[in-house]
């Protein structure tokens, strides 16, 4: 980068052409060369900039001069405040993340033989439009349904492997004998010996949660040298008697029942049959308790709502980082390659660890490049538009929106609020002015004494 711009900076050639004969022959060539660009810039940059600033002080209808009313609206309208807040979050999170990922990838790929393949994988999304990137993530990754959305699918698989979901989500005990809650499980408040039976009645179960294969519950028969029992829905239309297995009451299949010893330690567990019955056979002497395990009430994984109002902003930022990390990696990688090897070798010879070399030598030498990457990302993030539009469902667009998107929506999506739209454009312009000045300063510095 510096190799071209820091070299001789367009000084006029010495000993130029002989003294001019006329104005045209002197400036004509320059005009011919610069003219087309000059007129296009005048027409598309200078005039619109002035006009947009003027428009931002005029009412939406275009009739009255309203001073700063349009700007006031930016800072009072709820949706516009959300947009500003979201832009602030973007600026705080994304450029730093992208730069950090770029450093990590650039440093690590220096050490492997197949760096090209990796770089291609990470760099390729840069060629894709942010709009298409948004569609990609919305279609493949973020769907809430774990059987459609990749991320929720993976989470569901992991959760299923860690602890399978239960058959119910919640219930109440039907008699005071059963103590506890669906969060902690229900323990029968009664000690049992071999040959006893246990009645574990539950109520307040939503009808659609009762498993489809549930059958009429059956009063448990005492087992000879074990404990038997039933877990059932102790409720039948019209009431019924609590704590009694009656006609029309269904067993709960698949419930997990624990057998606890005197001290409350779990010694065994069983799963109920389709009529709700369970048995713990061949028990020795001693007293036991039984409990419906809390895992019976673990709701199946519904999927994280990535595009819901809470997570929509981070979700979009992740997709954006996916597209931008390759840019950072390549630019920083080129910066790394430009660091003289002998400087690093000298540090290593002096006994510095790899990490010290990285922190004390590499990063400081790299800082101009890191600055360029960071600032480029800040500008990109301030103007972010396409990816927000592509990922947000209509219902959460108001939670995900950003300034550039609102500028467009206010002006062109049928709202015709050109005054507010112009004010938003000027607002964006003001935000990038520091960057603009920085660019100019950097250019002048690089070209001084060139």
């Amino acid at each position, binding site marked *: *980068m510096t190799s*071209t*711009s820091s*070299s*001789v*900076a*367009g000084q006029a*050639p010495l*000993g130029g052409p002989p003294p001019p004969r006329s104005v045209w022959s002197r400036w004509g*060539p*320059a*005009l*011919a*060369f*610069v003219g087309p*660009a000059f007129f*296009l*810039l005048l027409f*598309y*940059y200078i005039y*619109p*900039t002035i*006009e*947009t600033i003027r428009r931002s002080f005029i009412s939406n209808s275009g009739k009255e001069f309203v001073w700063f009313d349009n700007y006031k609206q930016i800072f009072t309208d709820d949706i516009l405040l959300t947009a500003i807040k979201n832009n602030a979050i973007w600026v705080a999170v994304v450029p730093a993340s992208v730069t950090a990922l770029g450093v990590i*990838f650039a440093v*690590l790929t220096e050490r*492997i033989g197949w760096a090209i393949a*990796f770089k291609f*994988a*990470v760099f*390729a*999304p840069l060629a*894709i*439009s*942010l*709009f*298409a990137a948004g*569609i990609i*993530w919305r*279609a*493949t990754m973020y769907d809430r349904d774990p059987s*459609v959305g*990749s991320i929720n699918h993976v989470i569901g698989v992991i959760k299923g492997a860690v602890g399978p979901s239960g058959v119910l989500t919640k219930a109440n005990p039907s008699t005071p004998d059963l103590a506890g809650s669906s969060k902690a499980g229900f323990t029968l408040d009664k000690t049992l010996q071999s040959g006893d039976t246990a009645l574990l009645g539950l109520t307040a179960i939503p009808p659609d949660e009762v498993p489809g294969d549930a059958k009429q519950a059956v009063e448990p028969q005492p087992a000879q040298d074990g404990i038997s029992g039933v877990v059932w829905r102790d409720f039948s239309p019209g009431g019924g008697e609590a704590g009694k297995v009656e006609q029309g009451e269904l067993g709960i299949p698949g419930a997990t029942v624990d057998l606890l010893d005197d001290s409350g330690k779990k010694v065994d567990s069983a799963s109920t049959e389709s009529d709700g019955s369970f048995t713990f056979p061949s028990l020795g002497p001693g007293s036991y308790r039984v409990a419906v395990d809390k895992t019976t009430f673990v709701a199946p994984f519904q999927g994280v709502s990535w595009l819901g109002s809470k997570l929509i902003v981070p979700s979009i930022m992740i997709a954006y980082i*996916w597209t931008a990390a390759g*840019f950072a990696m*390549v*630019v920083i990688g080129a910066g790394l390659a430009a660091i003289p090897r002998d400087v690093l070798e000298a540090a290593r010879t002096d006994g510095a660890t790899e990490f010290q070399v990285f922190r004390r030598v590499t990063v400081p030498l790299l800082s101009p490049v890191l600055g*360029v990457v960071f600032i480029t990302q800040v500008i990109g993030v301030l103007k972010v538009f396409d990816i927000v539009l*592509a990922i947000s*469902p209509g219902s959460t667009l108001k939670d995900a929106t950003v300034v*550039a998107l609102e500028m*467009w929506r206010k002006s*062109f999506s049928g709202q015709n609020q050109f005054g507010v*739209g112009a004010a938003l*454009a000027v607002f964006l*312009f003001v935000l*990038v002015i520091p960057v603009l000045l920085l*660019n*100019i300063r950097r*250019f002048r510095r690089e070209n001084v004494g060139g």
Partner: protein
Amino acid sequence: MATAEAVEGRAVVVPRPESKAERVARFTAKVPVHLFLLIVGLLWLVPTFGLFMISIFDPARSATEGWWRVFSDPSAATLHNYTALFQNEDLVHALIVTALVTTGATILPVIIAALAGYAFAWIDFPGRDVIFIVLIGLLALPIQMALIPIFKLYNTLGLYDTVVGLVLFHTAFSLPFSIFLLRNFFVGIPKDLMEAARIDGASELRIFFRLILPLGVPAVASLGIFQVLFVWNDLLVGLTLAQSNQPIAATISLQLRQFGSNLDLIAPAAFVSLIVPLTIFLAFQRYFVQGLLAGSVK
């Protein structure tokens, strides 16, 4: 490495050549790095690959089943979505518009910027430095500043919803970057060459075509690739300045409201819209990276 072993209290280490054990140790030390990069690299490919799978997934099933099901049941793969796409007149028209706008808005700015870049680099004219500083300032100007006035102007001039209007807009908005890139490249051309040409009495035009352009091919190529990707991938300008002649991204965006139900149209359309720039990028990656490094200020 030698010091580490000495610390462990081994016998005196004979430096180099590297022993087999050391090579193995060096390799195993790198295993976590290889593994990490392998996983990250694969993760990075998954989303794009997933979109491709959805685009060939039987639409009756893609609404309720994940794209990975195509692996376990290849019979669910179909080209039907693509044949439907290419029979959809709106989308085919949008692709043609995109191709036309991209072609025009690549060739035109390259020519205009090369001329201006040469002048800024090698012709002395009054106000040159000031104008160039302004140009650098314009690099960061948000496109949003131009949308409302140009929209109104285009409506008056009859340029709204035309390919020409889109080409001119993209051309103008590429100029600060394009001129900056080419000027910086041209400045690096050896002064001796320029002076020799001028002493030989070559006209500026002759110098430009015979000397500057041939030497500038790499920079012009970089710029061309950039511009193709930038214009092809545009959504905002197409959405704002056209209606029945919108490019592909803008056309797809109108379908977003029924995202779930017409995924069989959106997915292949999005895939076609991204495979074109991706192919160009792959074919000319070298120029792309050069341009990126030369002008990463935009």
